[in-house]
């Protein structure tokens, strides 16, 4: 029983830590419950899609896809184009998604191919690749748009005549998904259509896992050598996982930005990867295992902490900025914590396996091991 409890605590260390942290921070923040509930309902509709985009690469054994930022860039480009052309409402959002698709697919293919060259180091490769692609994105947005790529709306351009302004207002598509099926329950606005989309993607992922390609991805995730020997095209499967993730990230970014109503041209995409990965890890996922409940729990816990930490910091120490720093600390810290826990579990499991082979008793903590 003691070993089981210990195993449970080790497996869910991050989730338990965050629940304790939030349980402490909510009363300190003195924020009304209705406000928190409304914000969480809205943020669930806004961010869950982006976090769902991370599941398939984890399934394919490629870890946390820091390269999802590439998809976010594609989504932003689609939104910039529809704003330039003056396409509004749901048709505008659909067009932005369609425009983002080819860019996402190409970037996903590039990302997947590079990750195939750096097997075992996919996360750091994706992270650095996002920085590299960010430079390319800046080149397109701040130079090519308006000079090489004709823009119809001069108000979007910088005063020098080319390059997109730092902030692009999405007045034509602002919250049009959120308000498509209006539902108010006890004064709380519920973005029903967003939830329907998220449910659709979640069902699609569940279905995808059972398909031939889905099974291949799981096999590749468990053991590349065995999968390759059994005839699964390992590299192609891995590229496919990253491409689907990038495409989903592009669509997720469109959903995310339509809720905010503005694009920060140079920085909206930058922290999407970090925040989505942090949310997934807080939900109890690891580098090798992630599920849809992890996504939902993670988005709720992460954004709850996001909401309460500035006010908690202000009420506790008298400075709201401390809460802001704490938010940054939390998002980076949780990723570090999850990686350390993963590595620790892996080493413990290896030691346990070695001890078993030598004929010694395996330590009880190691039984959980890496999932």
């Amino acid at each position: 029983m003691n070993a089981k409890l210990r195993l449970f605590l080790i497996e869910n260390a991050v989730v338990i830590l965050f629940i304790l942290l939030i349980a402490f921070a909510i009363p300190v923040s003195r924020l009304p419950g209705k406000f928190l509930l409304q914000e969480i309902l809205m943020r669930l509709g806004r961010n869950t899609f982006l976090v769902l985009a991370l599941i398939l690469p984890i399934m394919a054994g490629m870890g946390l896809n820091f390269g999802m930022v590439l998809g976010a860039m594609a989504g932003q480009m689609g939104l910039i184009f529809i704003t330039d052309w003056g396409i509004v409402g749901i048709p505008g959002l659909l067009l932005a998604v369609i425009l983002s698709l080819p860019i996402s697919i190409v970037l996903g293919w590039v990302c997947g191919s590079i990750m195939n060259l750096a097997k075992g180091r996919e996360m750091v490769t994706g992270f650095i690749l996002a920085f590299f692609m960010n430079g390319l994105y800046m080149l397109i947005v701040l130079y090519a748009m308006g000079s090489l790529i004709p823009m119809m709306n001069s108000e979007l351009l910088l005063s020098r005549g080319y390059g997109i302004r730092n902030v692009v207002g999405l007045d034509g598509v602002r919250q049009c998904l959120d308000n498509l099926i209006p539902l108010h329950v006890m004064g709380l606005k519920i973005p029903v259509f967003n939830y329907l989309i998220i449910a659709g993607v979640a069902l699609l992922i569940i279905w995808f896992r059972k398909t031939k390609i889905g099974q291949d991805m799981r096999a590749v995730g468990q053991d590349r050598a065995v999968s390759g020997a059994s005839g699964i095209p390992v590299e192609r499967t891995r590229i496919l996982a990253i491409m689907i993730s990038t495409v989903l990230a592009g669509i997720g970014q469109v959903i995310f930005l339509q809720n905010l109503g503005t694009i920060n041209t140079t920085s909206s995409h930058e922290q999407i990867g970090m925040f989505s990965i942090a949310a997934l890890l807080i939900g109890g996922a690891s580098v090798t295992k992630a599920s849809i409940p992890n996504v939902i729990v993670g988005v709720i816990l992460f954004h709850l902490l996001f909401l309460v930490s500035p006010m908690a910091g202000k009420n506790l120490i008298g400075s709201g900025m401390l809460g802001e720093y704490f938010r940054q600390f939390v998002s980076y810290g949780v990723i570090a914590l999850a990686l350390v826990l993963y590595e620790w579990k892996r080493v413990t499991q290896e030691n346990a396996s070695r001890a078993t082979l030598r004929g010694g008793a395996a330590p009880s903590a190691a039984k959980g091991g890496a999932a």
Partner: protein
Amino acid sequence: MTSRSLIQRSCALLGLVALSAFLFYIGKGHTLMVDTNAVTVDGKEFASAETVNVSIDGREPESMGRAERILVPVGGPRHTITIEVVSGGDQKLEQRISVPTFMDTALISIPAILGGAPRQHWVTRFVAPPSEDAPAEKMQTEGETTGVPATVAPVAPAAPKP
């Protein structure tokens, strides 16, 4: 790649392009400049009623006097305009108007619609004159320049009698 899969992928690509064109058409945003200035069409003058309530696509009606303009942002090519004459007559009519896809700002002439002018004079392209050419007394609202419709000549509102 087999020829069958090539055909399938080409069809999917063409379908996406067609869908994009359709979305562009139905989602193109316009600014409707609803105008109650009197207009002259083929030598016949159409003047607006004293006060009218104008509603676009079932939105909250806006009350407009003579020689006024309001801006209404809309999406898509087809819209319904409801005009209710509040004073200077007792008339309520609902008409469907179409805005060409590449007309960013369309001037909707209320007198032309109320007076039964030919349909082509209901919606005209708004062309803003260079700001230095626009006389100050013709400015309708602050920060907005008046424009002359491409096909309809506006009649300057009569000077108020002392």
